[in-house]
């Protein structure tokens, strides 16, 4: 398991290099912003017809993380589906794959702005959920503490050797953690954005995903 270890509200957590969060004590795996069915939604709305493989790809990666961690509880932190209709339009084999992943696990769908309301995909549906010291919700709230959220798709850039590497990243400080987007068809919002500068403490840390999980001080200024 390639991960960066840290604590939030006294809880030991691991930010995996894959973009998933692992809470060993609770055997809980948390992923955010899967955006399943994104290509279907774009086509439906008269946009382009993108390669329709992102749902399969996202679920395949999630299956690998579940196998690696042997998670017993799964929290999908909102925007799991690109919209409610996309959730209903999943192909049979994709639905089946979700069902198989849910088998024997406690599965919680936290709702997001893209997928408000219940989803007919098994599991438990919540607007937000408190587990021990941590609260899981889709969008970070100002002044919260011990909060785990997603929504913003954070990414960070680091200058190395004359070039620049940009990767999706976890952002955390003593009060909150923001997860990167886990879905295949997702972009990111740079940590230098005002949103993060206001939400995150000056000593916030970023954990870049990729081949390994690499922690750096959260870059705050565009350069």
């Amino acid at each position, binding site marked *: 398991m*390639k*991960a*960066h*270890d*840290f604590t939030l509200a006294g809880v030991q957590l691991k930010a995996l290099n894959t973009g998933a969060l692992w809470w060993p004590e609770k055997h809980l795996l948390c992923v955010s912003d899967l955006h399943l069915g994104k*290509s*279907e939604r774009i*086509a*439906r709305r*008269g*946009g*382009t*017809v*993108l*390669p*329709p*493989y*992102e749902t*399969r*790809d996202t679920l395949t990666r999630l299956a690998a993380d579940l196998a690696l961690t042997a998670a017993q509880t799964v929290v999908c932190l909102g925007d799991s589906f690109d919209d409610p209709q996309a959730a209903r339009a999943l*192909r049979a084999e994709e639905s089946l794959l979700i069902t198989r992943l849910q088998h024997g696990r406690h599965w919680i769908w936290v709702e997001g702005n893209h997928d408000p309301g219940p989803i007919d995909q098994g599991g438990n549906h919540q607007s937000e959920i408190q587990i021990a010291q941590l609260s899981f919700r889709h969008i970070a709230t100002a002044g919260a503490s011990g909060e785990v959220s997603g929504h*913003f*798709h954070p990414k960070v*850039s*680091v*200058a*190395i*050797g*004359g070039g*620049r*590497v940009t990767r999706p990243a976890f952002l955390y400080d003593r009060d909150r953690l923001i997860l990167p*987007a886990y879905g*295949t*068809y*997702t*972009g*990111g*919002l*740079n940590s230098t*954005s005002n949103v993060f500068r206001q939400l995150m403490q000056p*000593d916030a*840390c970023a954990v*870049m995903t*990729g*081949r*390994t999980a*690499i*922690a*750096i*001080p959260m870059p705050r200024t*565009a*350069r």
Partner: protein
Amino acid sequence: MCQVPQLFQDWFATRGWAIHPHQQQMLARADAASLLLIAPTGGGKTLAGFLPTLIDLAQAPHDGMHTLYISPLKALASDIQRNLITPIHEMSLPVTIDARTGDTAQSRRRRQRADPPHIFLTTPESLALLISYEDGAHMFKGLKRVVIDEIHALADSKRGDQLMLALARLQTFCPDLKRVGLSATVEDPATIAQYMARHPDGCDILLADPGPAPDIAMLATDTPPPWSGGGAAYAIAAVMEQVKQHKTTLIFHNTRAQAEIFFHNLWLANDDGLPIGIHHGSLDPAQRRAVEAAMVRGDLRAIVCTGSLDLGIDWGDVDLVIQIGAPKNVKRLVQRIGRANHRYNAPSKALLVPANRFEVVECVAALDAVRAGELDGDPRGPGPRDVLCQHILITACAGPFDAGALYAEMTTAGPYCTLGRAEFDACLDFCATGGYALKAYDRWQRLLQRSDGRWQLRDPRSSQRIRMNIGTIQDSDTLKVRMRRSRGGKPLGEIEEAFAATLTPGDTFLIGGQIVKYEGLRDMTVEVSRDGRKKPKIATFTGTKFATSTQLSARVLDLFTGSDWPDLPAHTAEWLHLQRSFSALPQPGRLLIESFPHEGREQTVIYGFAGRNGMQTLGLLLTKRMEDLGLHPLGFVATDYALLIWGLDQVQNAPALFDLAALHKGLDTWLAGNAVMKRSFRASATIAGLIERNSPQSRKSGRQTTFSSDILYDTLQKYDPDHLMLQITREEALRGLVDFGRIEEMMTRIGGRIDHRHLPHVSPLAAPLFLEMGRVPVKGAAEERLLAEEAGRLMELSGLAQIHPAPAP
């Protein structure tokens, strides 16, 4: 229509002009279905193109549009409009004329569609947009002639391919439409004729008198050029002297960055304060227009410029053209030279300034080629299918279409005359359903087949999105630069996003000839302030990097076969003699490889002469092969001629590296993941309509909803490796940035004849390579290691390492 009417003869007489022979011939052959005029710059091409139109309209009233004029440049369209209005007014001709480009106001566009002018001037992109409207047939009703200006420039690009498809459409609206192409001097007029004619009809070619031979030479300087680099700073004083001796000098550069640096240095040496301007494609349009206007007025003594001035706007009285840096391509050099003495039958005067020692050789080879009248060019092959996909979508915007009829129409376009029905069907399937192995879009197809068999857009609203994305020009991601002011300062131009990313506040760079200081980024605009003190960091506009043509490379190799070089300056001839006695000179039909230790590394130089893009790709492929063979390559640098690779172990068996099958495999497998391939994919996917540059809602950049095209590329590679877009990307890899075609050409040329020399130290010919910019480290594990090191440093520096102790992995 042979006779020039009295009215026109009188008008010519009052201006003191005589009709050129080729203008007369154009008139005589005005009824040809297709006619291509090849005339040197300044040969009165445009008037030759319009004379039949003006005479026809003067003699018989015409309802609606008579002549459509297409130009690659917006500026050219307005320039022509100005020039045509003079004869129209002075002869009181009953002719209306109007132009439309991307800049034309909405109200005027609507008027043009409702009541088209007799002569309509536009660009390929605006034409593509016009045929996407339901009323396209109405607008072009009665059209008799289409005049394509600077067709040699269009025929080299996807813009030309798109134009030819649009012409096929127009020809369906107006079967009797006559096509006229106007071209500068090119190596193979027949290719352009075939390109522009309605296939399978022929196309007449009219060759104007090429005019007197140009007066062209290499600029003599007191200081010899340096061993490497492209700035030609050594020649500033000599160039300044030439500017003083001439009325107006155009100083051409191959890249925007070089133009900026040269302009800066020229300005520092401009003791007399001569009016000198700069003009290139990254400058703010308002600034460019100001320079153009000053030039037309004759206010400027010199203009430092790039390809943005390559095309034929009439710039007044230029009497000298200076080309800085090797010309790379003889045809373009000849066209640039033609910009001097823009008068018929006057010799053009031009000077070449090599930027480094190797370019001296290339300049001499190019001069030989110009004198011998030998131009160069690589055949382009059939028209690319990404353009075809866009045209299918454009056609769908105009209304339901029949696939068979559209296919038949497309094969009348020169670049697509060999298009097979199966290839067309694959493009149609891509436009309709995405063409994926996984049939996912039954309900949400983009195009639907109706019960009458014709195809139409499923969602009529998508026509707006398609129209917003018409065109084949790929602008790289650029950011606007403006002066920092309280209410938004003066716009200066654009720099590439990748370059902006390397700037830290306080860094300085050159733009529009001034040194500015980077202040910060606001709303995706780079804010700068004036800063005259510091030495600038250089703006790296990548722009277009031209590769030296196959023919010019061959000429350089031929030059090396000589026993002595009386045409070369002594310093360069001595250098070549030294190389010959120490090692060998590269020879035609063979491949020279040198290996030697230097700076504690094993160095290998491959004199492949495959052009910079091809050599770069060869560098990527060979270093990968070397890694597989355990030779531990560390990096490489490529030029138009040679590739230098350094590593830990000596290359013993060089021929083993050059297996074409293995190189091909490398292209298909590991190079497929390379950034260059991803850039080719993005360009093609954007043109084909898979990626939208513009959409009605979204504002580009900075938002988390947009995701990188690299993700689409990787996804297709993984789940649908035979998909049409990947096929097109592989086809693109043979030319352009990847230029694998040149590697194949090299392999054929050398046919296994490899001379591998093991030398005790660096050779004279290889030495300049060690000073070249643009070294590429061999990636892989290296990037991860660098990142980890940088992360450790940052954590340490910030003190966060103490707060968040990094536990053992």
